[in-house]
């Protein structure tokens, strides 16, 4: 098991955000860290006109480590912003 950050941009559309955000985040987590990744924390940390919403999260990756876990440096920093 390991932790790693995730940072992605999301293009909002009219209507409720959560029903589209959550599947998008889950897919982004899987794309970055594989099928054993799940979201521990996430939040929207910026809203930039023309670019969308910045989503930052901490992922937990269960089970055997993948190649990305052997990097000497962690990936781009993430800014979890949920209550503790």
């Amino acid at each position, binding site marked *: 098991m390991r932790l790693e950050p995730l940072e992605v941009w999301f293009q909002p559309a009219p209507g409720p955000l959560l029903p589209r955000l959550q599947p998008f985040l889950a897919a982004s987590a899987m794309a970055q860290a594989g099928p054993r990744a799940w979201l521990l924390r996430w*939040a929207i940390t910026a809203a930039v006109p023309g670019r969308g919403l910045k989503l930052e999260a901490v992922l937990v990756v269960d089970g055997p480590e993948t190649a990305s876990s052997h990097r000497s440096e962690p990936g781009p920093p993430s800014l979890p912003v949920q209550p*503790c």
Partner: protein
Amino acid sequence: MLSAAVAPLPTLLVIPTGVGCAVGGYAGDGLPAARLLAAASGCLVTHPNVMNAASLYWSDRRIHYVEGWSLDRFAAGRLALAPVASQRVGLLFDAAIEPELALRHRQVAEACRASLGLRIGPVVVTDAPLGVGLRSGSSGASWGTLARPDALLRAGERLLAAGATAVAVVARFPDDPGSEALAAYRRGSGVDALAGAEAVISHLLSRHLGVPCAHAPALDPLPLDPALDPRAAAEELGHTFLPCVLVGLSRAPDLLHEPAARSGCLHGDELGAVVAPAGALGGAAVLACAERGVPLIAVAANPCVLEVGAEALGLAVLPAAGYAEAAGLVLALREGLDPASLYRPLAGLD
């Protein structure tokens, strides 16, 4: 016979962790706002970042102390809160804590047993150092990592097997007394560099165990700072940050998966208001409430390093200049007043 008493209006107070909120971004300095909102609502759900002031705490039966992972699920209607008379709080110590510092923490637990009558124990030490690392993102918000999350979860399992119904975690955090970030925090102008890592620890454990959890960092004492900001002062009072965690957990509600049938439960769909900083509305709990139509009170006078406001997210909010005004709006909702009637100009009917 019908009662003339006004029913409580269950209200959620969120002050995000590790983003430098002017109110609640320091050492439990959101507590006065929580107390006021509890009085206005009669029932407040909030999280340890708001309530924890190291050696200082406030116990109020109207306030429900719920860690962030569980809070998000409560707001989404997936967990119910079941008030209890008391929890049996197990202590989970990081193996990296030095013997003298560990003894300080054990003595805090003994004091809470002897002087407050709390049910505390058993005590478990992780089978490997947790390896806490602190990180800061490009916007200045804090987060953190653990080298051995598996050791944390195993220790939690041992506590539950030994009879604990809630878990207080104490992890050894890195000391960095000379850092600019710490100096800024102690002088009231920075982000709490520890808070993000604390949230990672408590979220992991809460998700894994399904019981109330909260975290206190173990650190060496800091040198005196004559310019200390009052909002950070609670962390200078003792050898540990543990008392508030033990008190908070001692009456934290049980967490039940929905649909929960236990009598007296509080359900997410009973929330009548949510209060959050106007520039930090992009968290799961706030979005879940807002999208269900729960009135969202956005507090302007609580700036932080983020600027994620209602307009960017397409949310309708009730604006409040500060927490005193937010409490007034909660009281208005509780009394059945239309908040719009309190603002000017008052728009006419369509």
